[in-house]
């Protein structure tokens, strides 16, 4: 932590140069006036990645493969939001078995992503380790379970998508190839173990010491009357938003923020920042969880706490691991291959838009398609850029508590908090250098 004087502004700088358990590069600056933190600002200086421009002139099916490359952790979210946007525009009706396979591949992504975050990225914060590698020496079984959980998710994506990273089998109307029943049945043993690990994990995380933090949060997610949300439903909030998944941009908008290479998102009506992801889904859709996950959440006694304390998000993600493993097993059990892997379609000009639930929350895509069936304009709004304003608002509250802490303790606390949002900074187009400026 360094102190510096700039004119009338006293700048206190804390370098948090070791935030290795989030994705990407960025900085955090706290502004302090009269001893109070008045603003927290994420500066995102990871280079822009231009995917929205790369897809211009491409066909819809080319887009599906290109947007998968935005993220190595959540490629399915990008594929699903795009594929639904195009199908909504082109009027494509998909086979129910294809719909089930899409939920299955999304289960794979949640298992892989949440497994990585809960065991390898977030658990070390609670247990006081620098990394999963350091944690493995004392908590071998925890790390083994994390690796096996991640593999179980990856294997689903590989089986359905052709490969675990940047899968290539998703297309408008369905899949290029659908699996045989025996291919899916082969996934069962690992998924059954993963389901048991997930249930154990919920019990374990519920016993962790969760740092004190309370804030009323504004949550946004998809909500479906009969299912925990992946691809369908209504886009809702806990303060009255209720629109179609295609209508994100009627309620929210992106805007440029100084010092950041990522656009932020905000409510058009000026309402408070909102939070996406596992805590939001638990807050808005817990009644739709798989019965085993609902029971696991109930047993923790933390269903309300995950709504007010972001540090408890590890409980929400663990409950979703129970859900995703259970639903994956159910889908595999009931699976009957569709008669055709995809529904034929014909492009038509217009605007297609959709939002689906990435592990980190709502991922919105909007495409303008021209008369030749090619992309004329594209807008992609990833979850982390939507969460940024809520992260900054929470950091203003949490920042107050670190002002009197030592450099190490302040750094550790704020890193822990930021990891609680599971930010994917590369998706948002981030790494933390913390500066505290005192006026």
């Amino acid at each position: 932590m360094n102190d510096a004087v700039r004119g009338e502004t006293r700048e206190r700088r804390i370098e948090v140069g070791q935030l290795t358990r989030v994705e990407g590069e960025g900085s955090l600056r706290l502004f302090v006036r009269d001893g109070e933190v008045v603003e927290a600002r994420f500066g995102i200086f990871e280079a822009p990645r231009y995917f929205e421009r790369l897809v211009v002139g491409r066909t819809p099916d080319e887009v599906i493969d290109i947007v998968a490359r935005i993220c190595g952790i959540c490629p399915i979210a990008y594929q699903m939001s795009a594929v639904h946007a195009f199908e909504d525009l082109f009027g494509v009706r998909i086979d129910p078995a294809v719909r089930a396979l899409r939920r299955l591949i999304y289960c794979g992504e949640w298992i892989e992503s949440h497994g990585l975050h809960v065991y390898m990225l977030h658990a070390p914060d609670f247990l006081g380790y620098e990394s999963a590698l350091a944690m493995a020496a004392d908590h071998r079984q925890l790390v083994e379970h994390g690796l096996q959980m991640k593999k179980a998710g990856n294997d689903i994506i590989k089986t359905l998508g052709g490969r675990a990273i940047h899968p290539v089998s998703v297309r408008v109307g369905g899949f290029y190839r659908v699996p045989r029943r025996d291919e899916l049945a082969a996934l069962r043993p690992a998924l059954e173990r993963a389901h048991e690990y997930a249930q154990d994990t919920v019990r374990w995380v519920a016993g962790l010491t969760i740092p004190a933090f309370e804030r009323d949060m504004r949550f946004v997610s998809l909500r479906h009357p009969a299912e925990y949300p992946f691809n369908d439903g209504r886009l809702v909030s806990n303060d009255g938003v209720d629109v179609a998944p295609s209508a994100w941009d009627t309620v929210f908008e992106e805007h440029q923020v100084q010092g950041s290479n990522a656009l932020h998102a905000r409510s058009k009506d000026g309402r408070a920042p909102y939070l996406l992801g596992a805590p939001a889904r638990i807050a808005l859709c817990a009644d739709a969880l798989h019965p085993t996950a609902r029971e696991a959440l109930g047993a923790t006694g933390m269903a309300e706490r995950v709504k007010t304390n972001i540090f408890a998000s590890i409980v929400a993600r663990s409950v979703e691991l129970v859900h995703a493993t259970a639903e994956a097993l159910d889908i595999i059990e009931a699976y009957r291959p569709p008669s055709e892997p995809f529904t034929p379609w014909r492009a038509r000009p217009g605007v297609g838009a959709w939002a689906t639930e990435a592990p980190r929350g709502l991922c919105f895509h909007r495409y303008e398609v021209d008369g030749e069936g090619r992309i004329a304009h594209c807008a992609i709004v990833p979850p982390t850029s939507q969460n940024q304003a809520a992260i900054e608002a929470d950091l203003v509250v949490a920042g107050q508590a670190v002002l009197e802490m030592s450099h190490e303790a302040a750094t550790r606390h704020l890193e822990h908090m930021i990891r609680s949002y599971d930010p994917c900074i590369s998706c948002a187009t981030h790494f933390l250098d913390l500066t505290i400026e005192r006026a």
Partner: protein
Amino acid sequence: MSATGRSMKPRVTVFLCGEAHRGDDGVAFRAAPLLAPEAQAGYRAEAVGRLDAQHFLDLAPGAQCIVVDAVAGITPGEILVMPLDRLTMLADARSADRSVSRRRSSHGTSVEDAVALARMLRPDSARGTFVGVGTARFDLGADLSPPVAAALPALAKTLAQEIDRLALGEAG
């Protein structure tokens, strides 16, 4: 046959790392077809893209493997061969110097961390060799840069030699 022609049961796993459509990052995938067929040559190639510890833990105890990946920071086309043991030393050095890890993604484990984690969880895992190729560019597209493309025959020869050496049970 071994990678150079002798008949034997496949024993060595070759992990192909990288991204085939990101320029020189795809070099491992381009070298594999230059090897003798797997069934004859005593190896099994697995395209893993991004390696993690579980890939090593899925192998039989003591099984030998080769990790092939693109390497930044050495001369483009240069072929780097080192025992996986030495990579764990890099991981140790990196954890001792936090500034070195500053720009690494957490969403993908580095090869050295994957090796170190696998060894911690099972000491008889992650045995073998790392074969790296110096790279010039990682932009979009499947084309290799000229120096990396020119190094493919030498890379294939190195891999064949390492497969033979490890299959014969020489320490990796």
